[in-house]
């Protein structure tokens, strides 16, 4: 068993590995091109010579062995869920089931072309159709588009649909209300659709109060975007009343579904009055995050917004499943083809593996784990909103600041203990925020180890603050000079002269 004397993290054998461009030797290759069995015409005979280039200078020349070692060594410099606890708040870093990787690579999926005639893609279409039905049921909404490639892409698609809906009523409206605790993508997505963003303050209990919405609401407000549970990990308990206020003036309620993990099978956004909601399949539905994608951000809507869904939709017909492009009120397309299909396969496999009871168990356990952490850590860290939380809890560095130890220092010190830090300095409404989301796939033992590490760091902040301020000590590199990176940007390798 691990304690602070024996931290989870320790030192292994880690290799230095230069850039691939500084390796290799002319003539080396990591690929075997099969012989060409058609006439080997000169390219100049087929394409005007002034449009041709020679071999690309600077591309590495390495063997397959070099390739495998290069990427394997670099991978060892990364932290991943497979290695340990990754409590990155709002990111829902749950275990990524391996069977999902296997099924996504079945030749019938991996080698299926997006322009297959529908009759020859019935398996893919049935999967998409069933996944749409499942997501609609989980969210309590009527239709779901699977097109968007990420959460922010889903937000953008949702806001576009809201705009098209208002446009169809004669006025696209000008404003979108967004609580201050929202993710930065909410205002950025709204701005891409030409909307002015009106911030809404949270009340003293950490949730949006109906009077604040009522005061900002008028007939020029297109929508309210609200994350529930919010980024403090709190359930927006007035959500139904807020939705009524927005609807009364013809506005739409956009639900940011980033935190759906906490409520699956327990309560449904559609039943709160949400009109549009994006799902983050790379959070709630176990698509691996891959170091920054691929994810997917399907968007569910109520019936009245369904005419505006992007094309194509998947429909069930008497002849089987079909892609439908004939939707005159559609916002158009937000990506090529029909979806990030491989992501859909993984999420479909995940939902099938869990079933209705499993999904509810996910939500319950995620919430139990978060409340356990919150309860056990509030002795050592300042907890600005001390009430039952959902999937995550937010602490601050208020008790460590007198020792000149900041949230950033605590985060870096956690690495030495073998943990990925929580999300830091977000949400913005908590100064020095430490946002911890354990997810349901962590055992009590892991949570206890993390708690022990956090408590040890709180002690260190008092007794040996330099140790915390100079962390991390274990990883390959220490704190990096981000100012230099931004002031003198080096964004690519260049050959040395």
């Amino acid at each position, binding site marked *: 068993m691990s304690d602070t004397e024996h931290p989870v993290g320790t030192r292994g054998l880690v290799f230095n590995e230069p850039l691939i461009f500084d390796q290799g030797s002319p003539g080396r290759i990591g*690929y075997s091109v099969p012989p060409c069995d058609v006439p080997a015409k000169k390219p100049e005979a087929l394409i005007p010579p002034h449009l041709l280039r020679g071999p690309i200078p600077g591309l590495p020349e390495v063997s397959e062995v070099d390739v495998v070692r290069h990427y394997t060594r670099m991978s060892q410099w990364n932290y991943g869920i497979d290695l340990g606890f990754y409590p990155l708040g709002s990111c829902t870093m749950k275990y990524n089931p391996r*069977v999902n990787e296997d099924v996504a690579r079945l030749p019938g999926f991996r080698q299926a072309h997006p322009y297959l005639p529908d009759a020859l893609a019935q*398996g893919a279409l049935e999967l998409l159709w069933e996944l749409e039905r499942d997501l609609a049921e989980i969210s309590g909404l009527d239709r779901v588009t699977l097109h968007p490639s990420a959460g922010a892409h889903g937000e953008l698609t949702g806001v576009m649909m809201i705009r098209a809906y208002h446009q169809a009523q004669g006025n696209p409206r000008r404003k979108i209300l967004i609580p201050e605790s929202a993710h930065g993508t909410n205002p950025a997505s709204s701005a891409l659709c030409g909307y002015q963003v009106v911030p809404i303050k949270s009340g003293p209990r950490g949730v949006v109060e109906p009077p604040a919405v009522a005061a900002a609401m008028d007939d020029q407000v297109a929508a309210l975007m609200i994350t529930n549970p919010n980024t403090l990990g709190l359930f927006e308990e007035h959500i139904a009343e807020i939705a009524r206020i927005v609807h009364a003036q013809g506005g739409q309620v956009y639900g940011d579904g980033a935190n759906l993990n906490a409520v699956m099978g327990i309560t449904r956004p559609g039943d709160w009055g949400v009109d549009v909601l994006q799902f983050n399949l790379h959070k709630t539905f176990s698509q691996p995050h891959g170091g920054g994608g691929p994810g997917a951000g399907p968007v569910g809507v109520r019936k009245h917004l369904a005419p505006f869904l992007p094309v194509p939709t998947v429909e069930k017909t008497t002849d089987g499943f079909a892609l439908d492009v004939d939707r005159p009120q559609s916002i158009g397309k937000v990506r090529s083809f029909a979806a990030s*299909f491989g992501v859909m396969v993984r999420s479909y496999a995940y939902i099938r593996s869990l079933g209705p009871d499993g999904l509810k168990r996910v939500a319950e356990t995620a919430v139990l784990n978060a409340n356990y952490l919150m309860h056990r850590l509030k002795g050592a860290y300042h907890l600005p909103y001390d009430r039952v939380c959902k999937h995550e809890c937010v602490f601050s560095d208020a008790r460590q600041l007198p020792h000149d130890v900041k949230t950033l220092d605590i985060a870096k010190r956690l690495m030495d203990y073998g943990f990925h830090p929580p999300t830091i300095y977000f949400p913005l409404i908590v100064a020095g925020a430490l946002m911890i989301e354990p997810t349901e796939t962590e055992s009590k033992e892991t949570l206890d180890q993390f708690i022990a590490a956090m408590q040890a760091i709180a002690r260190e902040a008092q007794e040996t603050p330099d140790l915390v301020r100079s962390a991390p000590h274990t990883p390959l590199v220490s704190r990096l000079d981000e100012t230099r990176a931004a002031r003198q940007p080096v964004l690519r390798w260049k050959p040395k002269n």
Partner: protein
Amino acid sequence: MRYIPNTEADRRQMLDAIGVGAIGELFTDIPEALRLKRPLKIPPALAETDAVKRLRALAARNADTERYNSFLGAGCYEHYSPAVIGHLVLRGEFLTAYTPYQPEISQGTLQALFEYQTLVCQLTGMEVSNASMYEGASATAEAILMAHRITGRHEVVVARAVHPEYRQVARTYAAQVGLVFREAAVTEAGATDLEAATRALGSQTACLVVQSPNFFGGVEDLAPLAEAAHAVGALCLVVVAEPIALGLLKSPGEGGADLVAGEGQGLGTGLNYGGPALGFLATREQYVRHLPGRLVGQTVDREGRTGYVLTLATREQHIRREKATSNICTAESLIALMASIYLVSLGPQGLREVALQNLRKAAYAKDRLAKVPGCAVRFRGPTFNEFVLQTKQKPATLLAQLRRKQILGGVALGRWYPELPDGLLVCVTEQKTRADIDALVAALGGTR
């Protein structure tokens, strides 16, 4: 449940520690009226073996390229993916990491993305690339918005030979901020009409958008098009939907492009029924602060050791919120990693050789099909690995006949181009053998 470690005993201990009697007490903040009082209506849980059976059954009902002789391209290309790619991206350290917000324990992802940015620059002939976009069409749309921000202009001239779905996506995005689109027609050679493009360009044009190889497979002469755009102070945005072509064709950068947006799916990432794919976006150094998306930069740590971080974040949504260059956050890092491994494995010679095989095999197919009674090659200009076949029979009828012989003959163009009701877009990659091509020729009534 195999993905949830906590047992009933664990739950009990944790509830006791919190001081509540039951899990339900952790949900009392959800108003009673909003609670779901029945189980979700989704199918019951499957054991892993049963889940696999279900997925296999679905996969078996798709006509994949292992079972069908496929000539489908049109923005999604069948290229061989070396085995190392599949193995390396399954390493959990890459697969199960988040966006590299904590650089000290994310150097693997960061250095790999720095290398990816370099590889995209080398391929496209540009100076700076971001760390990936969603896919080709939305990358094109974001590049147009970028041109709009740089120039402050509101019109866009788009070649009709740009992928029709890319044009649709660009319109969807641009409509939100009121950009006006003009179109540049296609010549009889199957390339963008320089005169038409020049006529459409004006003092309000933010950018000219051309694709090479274009949607009909035609190789565009970019330099005069870029010059025409520059002559009116507009930017030139070159779209690349088939990156393998850049192993042989002069880079967009050399052709005068200011922005290059495209699709990296062709770089060994698989078909996947269209996604996940890989958008890329590259530009000149002077425009770097207008780029959307993540950027990785080189720096040093406290001991002076080289390391990498996400940088120039003041462009981005988490800092700038509604004033950001884009809302993009999660993109396609793992697919960018796959594309990098592909390019690094092939190297300059391998990439050139694969591109050459595409060119030669498509040329062979084009020659043979041109001689089939009832078939003709629609455009006379140079093409890379795709070309438009004009057929006497309706393409739909023809394709249905071919399907009965396990051949996917191409993509009918009529749905996007009413002026090409008899047009069939045929793609021939290095994966096709001479026998595969001869089988298509024979099935269409030509001789073996």
